C-alpha cells in the first residue's frame, strides 16, 4: 500500500512539472504586453517607450524564454511564485489566502451534490420508468441546462433582495463574523454549485445502480431472504458507489469552473475571483500561479481517489 501511494505521488509530481512548463509557455505565448497593461493609456506619452523597455528589462521579460522558465522554476521550488505585476504582492501569498474559501465552497457544494444525488438516483433506479424517475430526470436535466450565474442572480434577487434572508455577497459581514455568518454567506453559492453537480451525479447513480440491480449477487441476496431495502443498500448500492469516486474526481475541474463563475456572482473571495481579475489584467505570475494551484488540486484529488478506490474496492490490487 505504501509503495503504491509513493508511486502514485511520484507520477503526480512529474505530471505536475510538465503542467508547469505547459502553463508557463502558454501564458507567455498569449498576445498582449503586461507592461503596457500596467500603464493607463492616457499616461502613455513620449519617453514612455523607454520606460516600458526599462520595466520589461526589470521584470526579466526580455530574457530568452528558457532562462525565464528556469528562473521561475527555481524560485517556484522555494515556494516563490513571483509577485503580481499589478499589486506587487507575492503570488503564493495571494493564492494561499484564497485557497481556503474556494475549498470551503467546493467541498460544501460536493457534499450537497452527494446528499441530493445518492438518494434521488437510488429512488429513480428502484422506481425506474415511473413518474418518480421521470421527475428526477427532468430535475437533473433542468439543473444541468440552467447556467449557474443565472440561478445565482435569481437566488440573490429572491433570497437577498426580496426576502432579505441571506447576504448577497462576500464571505462574512464586515465587523461581524463567526461560523454562522460564514454559513449564511456560503449557503447560496454552495447550494447552486451543488445543485449543478447533482444533476449528472444523479443520472450516474441511477444508471450504475440499475446495472448492479441485475447482477447475480443481488439475486443471491434476495434468495437468502434479504428485504428489498437491505438488498439495495447493503449489496447493490455499495457496488454502484465505488465507481462514483472516479466520476466525482473527473468532475472536479468542471466544478472549479463553476466555482469561478459563482465567485464572481457572489463576490466570494476565492481563487476564481482572483484569477478572473488576473486574466483581464494579464498579470502573468498570478495566472501561472493559479493554473498551478488548480493543477495541484486536481492531481491531489486524483491521488485521493486512487487511494480511496484501493481502500473500498477489495479487488484493486495495490501491490
Amino acid at each position, binding site marked *: 500500500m505504501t509503495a503504491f501511494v509513493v508511486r502514485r505521488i511520484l507520477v503526480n509530481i512529474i505530471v505536475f512539472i510538465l503542467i508547469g512548463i505547459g502553463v508557463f509557455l502558454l501564458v507567455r505565448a498569449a498576445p498582449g504586453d503586461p507592461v503596457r497593461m500596467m500603464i493607463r493609456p492616457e499616461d502613455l506619452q513620449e519617453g514612455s517607450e523607454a520606460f516600458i523597455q526599462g520595466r520589461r528589462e526589470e521584470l526579466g521579460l526580455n530574457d530568452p524564454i528558457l532562462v525565464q522558465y528556469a528562473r521561475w522554476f527555481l524560485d517556484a521550488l522555494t515556494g516563490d511564485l513571483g509577485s503580481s505585476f499589478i499589486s506587487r504582492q507575492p503570488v503564493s501569498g495571494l493564492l494561499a489566502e484564497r485557497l481556503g474559501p474556494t475549498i470551503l465552497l467546493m467541498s460544501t457544494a460536493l457534499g450537497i451534490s452527494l446528499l441530493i444525488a445518492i438518494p434521488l438516483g437510488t429512488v429513480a433506479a428502484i422506481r425506474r420508468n415511473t413518474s418518480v424517475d421521470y421527475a428526477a430526470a427532468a430535475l437533473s436535466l433542468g439543473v444541468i441546462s440552467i447556467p449557474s450565474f443565472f440561478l445565482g442572480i435569481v437566488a440573490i434577487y429572491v433570497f437577498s433582495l426580496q426576502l432579505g434572508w441571506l447576504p448577497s455577497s462576500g464571505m462574512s459581514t464586515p465587523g461581524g463574523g463567526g461560523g454562522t455568518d460564514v454559513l449564511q454567506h456560503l449557503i447560496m453559492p454552495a447550494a447552486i454549485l451543488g445543485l449543478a453537480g447533482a444533476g449528472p451525479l444523479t443520472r450516474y447513480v441511477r444508471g450504475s445502480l440499475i446495472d448492479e440491480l*441485475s*447482477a*447475480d*449477487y443481488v*439475486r*443471491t*441476496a*434476495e*434468495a*437468502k*431472504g*434479504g*428485504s428489498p431495502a437491505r438488498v439495495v443498500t*447493503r*449489496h447493490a448500492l*455499495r*457496488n454502484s458507489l*465505488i465507481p462514483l469516486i472516479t466520476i466525482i474526481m473527473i468532475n472536479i475541474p468542471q466544478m472549479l469552473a463553476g466555482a469561478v463563475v459563482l465567485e464572481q456572482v457572489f463576490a466570494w473571495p476565492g481563487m476564481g475571483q482572483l484569477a478572473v481579475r488576473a486574466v483581464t489584467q494579464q498579470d502573468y505570475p498570478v495566472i501561472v500561479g493559479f493554473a498551478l494551484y488548480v493543477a495541484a488540486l486536481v492531481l491531489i484529488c486524483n491521488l485521493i481517489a486512487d487511494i480511496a478506490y484501493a481502500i*473500498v*474496492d*477489495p*479487488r484493486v490490487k495495490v501491490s
Partner: protein
Amino acid sequence: MDDNTEPLLVIDDLAVEFRTDEGVVKAVDGAAFTIDRGEIVGVVGESGSGKSVTAMSILGLVKSGRRVRGAIRFRGRDLGTLPAKELRSIRGAEIAMIFQDPMTALNPVVTIGRQIVEALRLHDKRLSKAAARDRAIELLALVGMPDAAARFKQFPHEFSGGMRQRAMIAMAIANGPSLLIADEPTTALDVTIQAQVLDLLKVAQQETQAATLLITHDLGVVAELADRVVVMYAGRVVEQGDVTTVFTAPRHPYTVGLLESLPRLDRDVDELHPIPGSPPSLLAPPPGCPFHPRCPLARDRCRTERPELRVVGNGTAVHRTACHFAEELAAVPTEVTR
C-alpha cells in the same frame, strides 16, 4: 399447516411469460412435477427449455417475468400468493438456492464470511455476531474449505471458482433447508473441479436431508445422483419418472434423442446422434406437440393435438410422458455412461 399427504413441493401447471420487444416469450408453459421430502430430482433439457425460469419461480425470483398460470405449493402453501415478508422468511431458510456461476453470484465487495453470516442472521435474529461467525467458520470447514477461519475474512476474488462454489453451498445449507435448488452448480467450473463439487453437494444433501432439485445438462450426473428425473422441452415437462425407468425405458422421443446424443463407452464416437434441428421459438411455439418438427415419429395428430402428460408403463414407480405414441417406443439405451 404441514400437509403430510402432499409432496414437499408441488409445481402444478406453471406458466411464465416474458414480454419482450419481439413478443411474448412463453418460457414455461404448463410445467408440472413434484418433489418429495429428502429426494433428489434431476431436471434436464436443452438450453432454453425453461429449467432456470421454473427453478427461479419457486422462490419468486423471476423479475421481469409474469406468472400467468399455475401454482407452486411448498408444504401445502402456495408460494405465489404468499405475502412478501412470509416468502422472505422461506427464502434462504426452508428453501435455499445454489446458482450456476459462483464468480458472479457472490458480492465482490463483501467478505465470504460476512455473506454467510448474513444468511444466518437474516433468519435467526437472536443469533449473536460472534456465534454466527463461529457457525460460519464451521460451515466453511464442513464444505471442505482448508483454513476456514482465515478464509472467512477473504473476499470472493481471493477464491478459486471451486472454492467459491463451496462457499455458496455452505451459505445454502446454513439454515438447514428442507429444499435445495441447484441450478447447474458445476457448469461454470473446471472439469476437474466438477466432480469434487458434486461429491460435496451429495454430502451436503445427506447432512441436511434436504430434498434437492438439481438442474444439469449432464445426464451422467443425474444417473449418479438423482432419484427421479424430469425432462423439459420448450417450457414443458415431456417426461418424468424414476431415473432407472426413464433412462432404460424412455417413453418420449425427445428423451430417446437426449440419451442417444450421449457419448457412451460401448459405442464409437462417430456414432453420436445429436438430435437434429433446434428447439422451437418460444415466441411462436408450434401447435400440437412442440417437439413435432424434430420428431422421427411425428404424424398429423402431433401437429394439431397437444399431448398431455400421462402415466405410462406398468412399473411401480410412476412414469409419465407427454407423447401420443409413447407405446411405440421400444426400450432403447440401457445404461448411461459419463
